């Protein structure tokens, strides 16, 4: 009789849910906090790390560098970065560098250092050193400076964040993370990606959607401005002229 070899341990999986999947932006909106709860299922109880990445809708970034010309600080030509999210947050149980190596992090776009943003307009293809079709960046060695500047300015605006202790295990296998949206966060569809790392490798990935949308009066006015721009313009001018006239009429009587 052949003794069956012990079956390979079942693969670990991660599961998560957002406490809110819809953020309504009304006139009182001053930002939102959304809590994410999740659980790790691993019969073998291997050491696990969780990384949560939240990306907002894509927004091209225009950035310029000031330089001193004849005593005046002037903007140089602006550089456009494509593919940049309007909001980005990376939270993890430990510093990302301890969780996984360069390769997996880069592939998953995990962490501000691995954010996939590029300035395609600043690249051109040319023949160099006899090699054809080489992609050359006009920014040259400065490229990293520009990239760092984008991340730094967006972080200062509260739109990009990285927290190496942002995911906490609150109970055995149960973890929690918090997403803070500032009032300036862009409107649109957000994606929260929850990645379970074991032994430096991503073993399970879950995606959760989050929608930030205008609601109520904000939405009505916004749609009015976008769908009937000329009528909207006329209405706003009539409101202005009417208010001016009303004030002068009121003051005449008094």
């Amino acid at each position, binding site marked *: 009789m052949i003794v069956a070899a012990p079956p390979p341990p079942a693969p670990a999986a991660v599961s998560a849910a957002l406490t809110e999947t819809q953020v309504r932006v*009304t*006139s*009182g*909106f*001053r*930002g939102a906090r959304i809590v994410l709860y999740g659980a790790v299922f691993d019969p073998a109880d291997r050491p696990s790390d969780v990384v949560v990445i939240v990306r907002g809708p894509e*927004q*091209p*970034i*225009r*950035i*310029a*560098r*000031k330089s001193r010309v004849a*005593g*005046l*600080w*002037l*903007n140089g*030509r*602006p550089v*456009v970065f494509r593919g940049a999210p309007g909001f980005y947050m990376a939270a993890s149980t430990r510093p990302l560098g301890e969780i996984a190596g360069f390769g997996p992090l880069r592939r998953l776009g995990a962490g501000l250092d691995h954010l996939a943003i590029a300035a395609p307009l600043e690249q051109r293809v040319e023949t160099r050193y006899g090699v054809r079709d080489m992609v050359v960046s006009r920014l040259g060695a400065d490229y990293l400076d520009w990239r760092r*500047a*984008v991340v*730094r*300015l*967006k972080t200062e*605006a509260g739109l990009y964040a990285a927290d190496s202790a942002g995911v906490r295990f609150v109970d055995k296998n149960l973890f929690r993370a918090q997403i803070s949206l500032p*009032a*300036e966060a*862009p*409107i649109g569809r957000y994606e929260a990606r929850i990645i379970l790392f074991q032994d430096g490798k991503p073993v399970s990935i879950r995606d959760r959607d989050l929608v930030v949308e*205008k609601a109520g*009066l*904000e*939405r009505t*006015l*916004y749609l009015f*401005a*976008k769908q009937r*721009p*000329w009528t*909207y*313009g*006329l*209405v*706003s*001018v009539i*409101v*202005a*002229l009417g*208010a*001016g*006239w*009303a*004030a*002068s*009429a009121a*003051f*005449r009587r008094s």
Partner: protein
Amino acid sequence: MHLYLPIAEVSVNAPLLVALGAVVGFISGLFGIGGGFLMTPVLVLMGIPPVVAVASEANHVAASSVSSVIAYSRKRVVDFRMGAVLASGGVVGAVIGVEVFRWLRLIGQADLAVSLSYLVFLGVIGGLMLTESLGAILRRRRGEPPKPRRERRPLLLYALPLKLKFPRSRLYISVIPPILLGVFVGILSAIMGVGGGFILVPAMVYLLRMPAKVVVGTSLFQIVITTGLTSVLQAGRNQTVDIVLATLLLIGGVVGAQLGARASGRFRAEELRALLALLVLLVGLRMGLGLFVTPSDPFVLMTGAGG
């Protein structure tokens, strides 16, 4: 109390904006200017995207100006005919200015153009007005008779064709200089996000030599026409007018403008001009300062322009 603005997409302190509108409205009614040169920089400083600030500000200027134009027209000191001639030039200028501004934004030099125009135009006009009005005040203090006004106007006003009578201003001049003045002011309005009163008022006094008492009302009348049109154009073409922001500003603005127009009777004309000159000069220098001071971060994100 904070309010989220639907077009600007930022949260702002509502009472603060109403108060700001009132202060600028008061200044507007007092000096016969739109007040855009004050309001636009302040709004941008508060974090409102410049494109939205410029467009919504035009709406607020229209409101506070209409409020004071009515007050001035009751005193019969508005030259509607001159205002209409200036505005016809202003409309052409605004259209040109919008295109120029779009091109400047494309090459990333809009910031520079705005700072430089503030520095140059506000600086020069403020400086000239300050010297002139301080001179007038000093002469009066010393008991000297006011400097006789040169009655001979520039010959060009008469030599050009298309002459028109302006009874309120007691002028019979060619319409070409006022139209050109209107075009010039229109271009600047689009670039700087202002009504252009701070250029119109001195230009009407020193170039067209209109009687001082009709200058303020007439300037405001032309501002109402151009900013009203700019508002509709901005909303129609760029969808950048934030009606909530404009309403907050104009609630304070129209009341302030009325108080300002009333208060203006209590000051002498040259004292008012000296005050306005000081204000213009300060804003111009403040805006130009950014060109000379080393920035804390050499990189800038171009918000609202990246679209």
